[in-house]
């Protein structure tokens, strides 16, 4: 029985709306979805940050200090902690002049995974191979 692949495409910037946060939290909650699947079937989620969505990935976000809310950086870290694949479009990072050292990681929390900076062509492949594409 084949696994179900979900691609979460995040294209909106952080904070003004809940959109980007929702995309990440939906992806993190994939483990709950597994309850609805057939025996032996798994959900394989992949988060793809594209366009202005890459602006969610900056590190050192001070959302708790200023807004009293959990930062999107923390949501991303939690995603990495549960071994979520989070892809970040290389071309869009370059377009906005964001270098790799500005990108969040969850190394301090002991995560094995890191944000994966990849060409858009790779994100396109993820979208094509997914059973469901969810755009946020």
């Amino acid at each position, binding site marked *: 029985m084949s696994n179900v692949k979900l691609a979460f495409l995040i294209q909106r*910037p*952080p*904070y*003004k709306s809940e959109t980007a946060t929702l995309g990440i939290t939906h992806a993190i909650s994939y483990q709950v979805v597994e309850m609805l699947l057939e025996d032996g079937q798994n959900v394989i989620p992949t988060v793809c940050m594209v366009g*202005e969505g890459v602006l969610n990935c900056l590190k050192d*976000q*001070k959302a708790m*200090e200023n807004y009293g809310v959990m930062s999107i950086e923390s949501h991303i870290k939690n995603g990495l902690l549960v071994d979520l694949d989070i892809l970040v479009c290389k071309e869009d990072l370059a*377009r*906005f002049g964001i270098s790799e050292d500005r990108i969040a990681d969850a190394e301090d929390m002991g995560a094995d995974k890191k944000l994966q900076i990849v060409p858009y062509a790779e994100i396109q492949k993820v979208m094509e191979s997914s059973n469901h594409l969810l755009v946020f």
Partner: protein
Amino acid sequence: MKLGVFVNDYKSTVETVDRLTAEKLGIIFIQNGVFHATIKDNGKASPILDKSANFYALSEDLATRGLTNTDVDSRVKVVTYSDVVDLIFNDYEKLIWV
């Protein structure tokens, strides 16, 4: 007219702001508007910064997004909440949000 304009979004606000004219124009970047003050799209700063205006960006909203004062365009002054209150009461007669 002394007009203060709060810009709180990134892409969707450029055309609206471009049409605004005033004897004294102040553009205050808050929330996601701070990306206008910091991000260069394909190497180009936001076209809003080409307007003849005084520009401000809220420091708390910069920090929330992982941005620092060194990311801010030289045409933009970084201000605190308290500074924004002063701008509202002392510098501009009318204030709008776009």
